[in-house]
């Protein structure tokens, strides 16, 4: 049922993926690959992983029929409620899987990069639960716009290291995590936060979050008696999108839509749309689409959403794009924020700004699909996270914050 033939043994999805990293990391990647393959075959490991998801993370997440949103968008909308997971996003699935793997490999320390802070919080959570030391690298710009998540990570016992080089965002945090890993690889697992990076990360992360799609598919069959017409997700590095897409890839009648962060608009150059506004190259260990100039220097991305503010994308999405199996489109900051507000007002759900990109994308494709199918389309949207962390950003965007001095907890500790 699942298209599990890719990647090949060296981590290639067609021409994408692979390993573009210093030789010093190859042994660790090989060990990780071997540990992952043995864990995959080990019923005991799978049982522990599934047990944690069920009893700790609150998975399977609901598939919720959003009636008022459906009315507003002219489509039958089902929301995959990853926002209800423990720690508030789909990311918890990946971190629990990888933290268990770190344990299995006997590594007492995990490091992570984070943009919005969601992956950092999830990593700190899993590290606390499984008694691992945790260090999180976070761009200084992001520590400022996601100060609450910085405090959360510290509460959970993690060390947060603000990264002050380059653009001071997610890509620089990732560079710094890789630099740490080169020096500490004997004792440390790099808990990479998205379905990108060198092999085996894109495959391993996909598999750990792949339950999203497996559950959504079964829930559709149970609730509707059929599969949806389309599945949609936002795409940063691509984990929540590949997580919900993967189980549907063989179902050729189900359209797959990935919505990238269009920032101020792809035509302005200020965006984070790697597939729709970038070109093929090598970044952070894999060949994929990325934002780069004529010399192959990475261009800084821009998005109102810290979690999508990344100039690359996972290699499997590059491949799904080239083969045409999935369709990728950009969504601007303004469109995403309008959809954010719409979900708040129609359903009483405050979504993550990341996930709001998926909602906004569906608002755009729903009329097209309706016309194409000649009936009301049924669309599953991955609501990858909740918006608690974004209250400040969204409040400022909508101009609804009272003018009081903001106290940032944990900032001076």
């Amino acid at each position: 049922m699942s298209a599990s033939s890719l990647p090949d043994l060296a981590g290639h999805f067609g021409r994408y993926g692979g390993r573009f990293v210093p030789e010093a990391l190859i042994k660790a990647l090989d060990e990780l690959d071997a540990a992952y393959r043995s864990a995959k075959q080990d019923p005991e490991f799978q049982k522990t992983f599934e047990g944690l998801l069920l009893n700790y993370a609150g998975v399977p997440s609901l598939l919720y029929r959003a009636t008022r949103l459906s009315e507003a968008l002219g489509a039958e909308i089902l929301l995959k409620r990853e926002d209800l997971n423990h720690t508030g996003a789909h990311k918890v699935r990946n971190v629990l899987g990888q933290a268990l793997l770190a344990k299995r490999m006997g590594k007492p320390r995990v490091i992570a990069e984070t943009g919005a802070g969601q992956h950092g919080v999830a990593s700190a959570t899993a590290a606390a639960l499984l008694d691992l030391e945790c260090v999180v690298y976070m761009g200084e710009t992001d520590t400022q716009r996601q100060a609450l998540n910085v405090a959360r990570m510290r509460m959970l016992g993690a060390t947060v290291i603000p990264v002050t080089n380059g653009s001071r965002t997610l890509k620089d945090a990732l560079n710094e995590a890789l630099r740490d890993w080169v020096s500490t690889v004997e004792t440390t697992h790099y808990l990479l936060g998205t379905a990108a990076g060198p092999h085996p990360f894109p495959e391993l992360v996909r598999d750990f979050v792949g339950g999203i799609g497996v559950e959504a598919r079964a829930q559709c069959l149970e609730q509707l008696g059929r599969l949806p017409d389309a599945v949609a997700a936002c795409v940063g590095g691509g984990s929540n999108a590949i997580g919900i897409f993967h189980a549907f890839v063989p179902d050729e009648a189900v359209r797959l839509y990935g919505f990238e962060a269009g920032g101020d608009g792809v035509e302005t150059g200020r965006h984070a749309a790697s597939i729709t506004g970038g070109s093929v190259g090598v970044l952070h260990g894999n060949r994929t689409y990325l934002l780069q100039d004529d010399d192959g220097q990475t261009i800084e991305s821009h998005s109102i959403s810290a979690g999508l503010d990344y100039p690359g994308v996972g290699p499997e999405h590059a491949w799904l794009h080239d083969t045409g199996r999935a369709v990728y489109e950009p969504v601007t900051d303004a469109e995403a924020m309008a959809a954010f507000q719409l979900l708040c007002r129609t359903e009483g759900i405050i979504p993550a700004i990341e996930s709001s990109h998926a909602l906004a994308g569906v608002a755009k494709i729903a009329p097209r699909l309706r016309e194409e199918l000649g009936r009301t389309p049924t669309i599953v949207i991955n609501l990858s996270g909740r918006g608690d962390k974004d209250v400040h950003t969204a409040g400022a965007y909508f101009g609804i914050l009272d003018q009081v001095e903001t106290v940032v907890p944990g900032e001076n500790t």
Partner: protein
Amino acid sequence: MSIAETFAKAKAENRSVLVGCMPAGFPTVDHSIEQMIAMHEAGCDVIEVELPYSDPVMDGPVIQKASDIALANGVRTRDTLKIIDAVSSAGATVVLMTYWNPIEKYGVDAFARDLAAAGATGLITPDLIPDEAAEWIAAADAHRIDRTFLVAPSSTDERLAMTLAHCRGFVYATALMGVTGARTSVSSQAPELVQRIRAIDPEMPIGVGLGVGNGRQAAEVAAFADGVIVGSALIRCVLDAGDRTTALTDLRALSAELAEGVRKR
């Protein structure tokens, strides 16, 4: 002089080769040319030009900072080729070190062609392993550019053998598990790695890098390696100097000290 000739000459003189690194265009194109020629004149046998890159994951703070300055001052890939041309015309043996994406963007074969035309003899690829290098290997062969891949203390014997089989000119042994930057002591992992390489390929010249900062350390590394690679300490001469004259004076002095070091094995 080719890389092979440079290593052969040093061997005949019973010493190691000194490889000095400097980012292209740091702080400006003209200044970097001046600096590299000064290093060459003061005793660096090989000038390793580094192509500044936005995401240098193998590099510590010093090289990151120098690369950022070069990029902020507008250095382009074509400038790097111009710099190589100028420095090799001044008589230096030049190799280029670069992360992979700028080459892929330029066009792999076109880059090998233009690199050879500029007078470089080799290319060091810190984030390109032979497993992913088929296109580069073909282009390097076609344009007679020596290929230097990296090996590390963590490399298995199997990977050492595979990587050595794909190296031409010399192999770059990263002396420790970590990023670039001068260290107070030279890694104890390095001699063992060199021994393991020699056991597999006794002929391949071995350059050892990461951490060497002064003449004493250069001598320590020269005692067991064919080449001593120095980067951050040289770059720091430029970063720390208040003015051009001081930068060049300090660069010459450190190059001379290191050159003496590689002769004291």
